[in-house]
């Protein structure tokens, strides 16, 4: 069997059994990268030398019995907004185009301790602001399923790298759907954990109250394993939370009998593509056939999630991105007159149009006189949205719906109308506002062959319910049940 077809877990098992070496796995990935990158462009930076060095170290530790974990020896990719010591970390922005961190983010560190080999850093929308990976300062990524289409975003490079078999797992980050939506567009599994589960230390901040790191994988099992590795409270992230049980693989049980699944009626209204709708409802039927109790319900405030999100996320972004001033790191303009002119020119030349748009809106809604009317109002609506989910989870274990209203659009179709692009986030965004875990699982393709994603949402700290439902569905589809 072509070793690129293995899941991350299967590959690691083969490596530990001595059937495949870490170097062979890395070789296979780089050969595939060499063959596909010209058309896909999933990576911003490829670290060949470092990867081979690491592969040798990891192999030795595996041979010595020091590394026995489920991902020992697995080649992975990291979204380029997570700091990696000694490796360029650009956030797909000119302003960080020369930034080489002197430390690694906590999630990357934990993965490396588990014995993975980092192959490179993946492309993304600049500062994770976008839904197509087209706002990157380093060129677009193309969807490996059909290169005329976008891979989604903002973790589009990570999703594309997994889908194109240019790595076995990739980390992404999700502020409003940036893991789940590209996973859906590229036909891979992506999970955004409960807010606070994975340390944000070393993740370049966008909307700090919404950002979470999570994996993009080939299988639900790989997602559960990654989550088990990278989760945990961290003193370096004051919003990280204590959780008792971080072994998410226990949830990999094929059983949804008696599971209560709610379908929000508003998620199936106007704007949803008919083929996406049919595929998602067919998935619901399949779970019902396995014994789940599936019913429709009214989820309140659905339409207010997007305006509330863009107010809060952009406000936080405007504050977070103040640090890019041309003094401490990153780009500095060539010619300037005085300090303030240097700040302005550096930032104007360093940031792309979408980032500027969001910084300006964020600055506006936080400004004196507008703070109450916009920013505080959005935080009040966020509370209402959270209450609506609390009410839903009194009745249901899982909420089921689509990830995005359509399959992946063609390149160049989205950026001309930012508002339309924002509206595409309708099903994913409320999950971030309410801090909930959400997963995207492939549930078929449309008539053009583009993947469709099923989104499952659970209450805070209930990743296990999410993973169990997703795993059960995935096993059914593998057996040809759907």
């Amino acid at each position, binding site marked *: 069997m072509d070793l690129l077809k293995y899941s991350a877990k299967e590959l690691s098992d083969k490596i530990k059994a001595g059937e495949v070496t870490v170097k062979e796995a890395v070789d296979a990935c780089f050969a595939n990268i060499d063959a596909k990158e010209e058309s896909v462009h999933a990576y911003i930076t490829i670290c060949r030398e470092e990867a081979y060095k690491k592969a040798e170290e990891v192999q030795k530790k595996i041979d010595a019995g020091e590394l026995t974990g489920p991902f020992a020896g697995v080649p992975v990719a990291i979204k380029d907004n997570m700091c990696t010591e000694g490796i360029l970390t650009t956030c797909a922005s000119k302003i960080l185009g*020369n930034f*080489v*961190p*002197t430390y690694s983010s906590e999630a990357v560190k934990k993965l490396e301790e588990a014995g993975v080999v980092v192959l490179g850093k993946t492309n993304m929308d600049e500062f994770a602001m976008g839904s197509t990976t087209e706002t990157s300062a380093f060129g677009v990524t193309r969807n490996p399923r059909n290169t005329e289409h976008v891979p989604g975003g903002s973790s589009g490079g990570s999703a594309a790298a997994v889908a194109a078999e240019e790595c076995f797992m990739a980390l992404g980050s999700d502020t409003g759907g940036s893991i789940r939506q590209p996973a859906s567009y590229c036909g891979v599994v992506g999970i955004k954990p409960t807010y*606070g589960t994975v340390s944000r230390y070393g993740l370049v901040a966008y909307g700090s*109250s919404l950002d979470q790191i999570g994996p993009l994988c080939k299988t639900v099992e790989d997602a559960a394993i990654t989550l088990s590795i990278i989760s945990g409270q961290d*003193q370096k*992230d*004051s*919003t990280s*939370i204590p959780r008792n049980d971080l072994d998410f693989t226990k949830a990999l049980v094929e059983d949804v009998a008696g599971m209560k699944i709610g379908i929000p009626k508003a998620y199936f209204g106007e704007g949803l593509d008919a083929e996406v709708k049919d595929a998602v409802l067919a998935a619901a039927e399949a779970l019902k056939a396995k014994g789940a109790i599936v019913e429709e319900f009214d989820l309140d405030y659905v339409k*207010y999630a*997007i*305006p*509330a999100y*863009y*107010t809060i996320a952009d406000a936080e972004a*405007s504050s977070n991105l*103040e640090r890019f*001033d041309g*003094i*401490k*790191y*990153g*780009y*500095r303009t060539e010619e*300037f007159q*005085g*300090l303030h002119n240097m*700040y*302005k*020119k550096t*930032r*104007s030349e360093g*940031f792309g149009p979408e980032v*500027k748009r969001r*910084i*300006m*809106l964020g*600055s*506006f809604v936080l*400004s004196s*006189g507008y703070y109450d*009317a*916009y920013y*505080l*109002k*959005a*935080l*009040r*609506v*966020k*509370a*209402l949205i*959270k209450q609506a989910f609390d009410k839903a989870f009194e009745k249901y274990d899982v909420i089921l719906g689509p990830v995005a209203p359509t399959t992946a659009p063609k390149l160049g179709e989205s950026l001309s109308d*930012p*508002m339309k692009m924002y509206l595409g986030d309708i099903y994913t965004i409320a999950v971030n506002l*309410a*801090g909930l875990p959400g997963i995207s699982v492939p549930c078929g393709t449309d008539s053009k062959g583009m993947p469709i994603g099923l989104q499952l949402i659970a209450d*805070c700290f209930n990743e296990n319910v999410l993973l169990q439902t997703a795993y059960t569905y995935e096993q059914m589809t593998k057996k040809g049940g759907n």
Partner: protein
Amino acid sequence: MDNASCRVLWEAICDNRKEPTMANVISDETIEYVGILAKLELDDAQKEQAKKDLAEMLDYIDELSELDTSAVEPMSHVHPTCNFFREDVVTNGDDRENILKNAPEEKEGAFVVPKTFD
């Protein structure tokens, strides 16, 4: 623009400000002020585009005013427990060399900034 003239400009904007309603119109003064807050320099074409974009987004955000939130507290953190603090004890050493590694300009162990006063 210095702080005093910035303040005057802002007061003028506040005086002319309407309550948030549908169809926002962003004035030249407002976009000028947002540029100052955001520390961005925009040329005329970019300013016009920014005025249009900002107005369109605000029209959309104004949908939130349909909701009566007078009895709702603003929610900044979703979990009831927040802020996980460590003991206030220094654990890192002198990291000056690393911190300066990415500086666009450094001199004798310090960041170099443009002259800030005459």
